[in-house]
């Protein structure tokens, strides 16, 4: 039996009239007509992605400027030239994914968990290749926790502003959308830390700075799940 025969069998099966209740169609049409008002379609995906990217950049720059741009002054040219473009690419990809999650029927480029894993491990690999000071300082944990908290605190406004920008969209998978937005917001925090934090010990950067990403993504996913259940 060829594929065409199966196609024909399916079409024949589907051609059997599935009589829809006219009253049901009328009821649906009536309820739609009763609340019909013009709506403005969402802006293009590129505009939204650019908006999200600018939000993250603005939060990171404003935060670092407020706390002091010590990190960027301590980084060498090569280190800066690798870290910031990598963060920019990761942020753009996360923004693209977050926008796609809020527009039903958008093309799927990558799943949010894959982006989180690939992006996070990619950043760790970049940090590992650039920083070779593997000593553990006495104040490893207090310094690390301070950086983690600062990163997460900067992810909050970035996440809120991103949600405001995307609020007219609709997530068919709220947890995935929350994960994508949380990942995006975390990158504002990580970028701020790279601009601000003068501690270039490999383990500090690899562990405490990148820890902002999974924590913020997880918070985004949990919040989205909570809101979806309440809806």
């Amino acid at each position: 039996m060829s594929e065409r025969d199966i196609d024909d069998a399916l079409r024949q099966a589907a051609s059997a009239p599935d009589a829809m209740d006219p009253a049901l169609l009328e009821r649906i049409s009536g309820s739609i007509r009763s609340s019909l008002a013009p709506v403005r379609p969402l802006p293009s995906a590129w505009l939204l992605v650019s908006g999200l990217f600018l939000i993250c950049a603005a939060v990171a720059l404003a935060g670092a400027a407020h706390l002091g741009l010590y990190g960027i002054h301590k980084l060498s040219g090569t280190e800066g030239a690798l870290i910031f473009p990598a963060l920019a690419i990761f942020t753009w990809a996360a923004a693209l994914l977050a926008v796609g999650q809020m527009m039903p029927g958008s093309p799927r480029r990558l799943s949010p968990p894959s982006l989180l894993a690939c992006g996070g491990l990619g950043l760790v690999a970049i940090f590992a290749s650039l920083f070779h000071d593997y000593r553990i300082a006495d104040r490893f944990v207090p310094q690390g926790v301070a950086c983690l908290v600062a990163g997460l605190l900067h992810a909050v406004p970035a996440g809120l502003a991103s949600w405001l920008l995307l609020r007219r969209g609709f997530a068919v998978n709220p947890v995935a959308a929350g994960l994508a937005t949380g990942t995006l917001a975390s990158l504002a925090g990580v970028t701020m830390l790279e601009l601000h934090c003068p501690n270039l010990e490999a383990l500090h950067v690899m562990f405490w700075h990148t820890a902002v990403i999974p924590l913020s993504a997880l918070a985004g996913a949990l919040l989205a799940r909570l809101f979806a259940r309440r809806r």
Partner: protein
Amino acid sequence: MLSDADLGTLMARYQQGDSAAATALVHCLSPVLHRFFMVQCVSRRYADDLLQETWLRLHEVRQTYRPGEPVLPWLYALARHVRVDHYRRTRRVESREQQVEKLPEIPAGASRRTDRSPDLVELLAGLPESQREVVVMLKLSDMSLDEVARATSSSVGSVKQKAHRAYASLRQRLTGMGVSQVGPGDRHE
């Protein structure tokens, strides 16, 4: 069914508040959605409920359709969401319910005749849900692989794989039913 360009035009008019376009869309897309739900559900009542829920949801989020984009992936993505949401809600409610008395059994044959379109439903009944929806979108709604991938939030490769597996099962099933070939006069062009 209308072409995707025509559906796109109707969607744009619907977003502008045109009630004639809204009615035309309901009449044009409801049979497609109803068939989608019929092959996934057990009864017409559920399919009718899901259809109404889908239209309500679709109406609430109609701004998320972007003019120029294909309509069917957007529509099916929302329909899938409503189906999954409905299924979860029903399961939650059923898990809390305590049946105190057994309901009288309704003869299956009698309800089958009136509640379902047996041919398509029975033909696809043996397939897993994910394969069933791919077959309906790909072969009955004439969507492209890319459009089905958009609607199901999966990759084109995954859609191809599901369609391939579904066809292997359908081939076996049709051969078992004694349908070896469809006559040339029965072919639909």
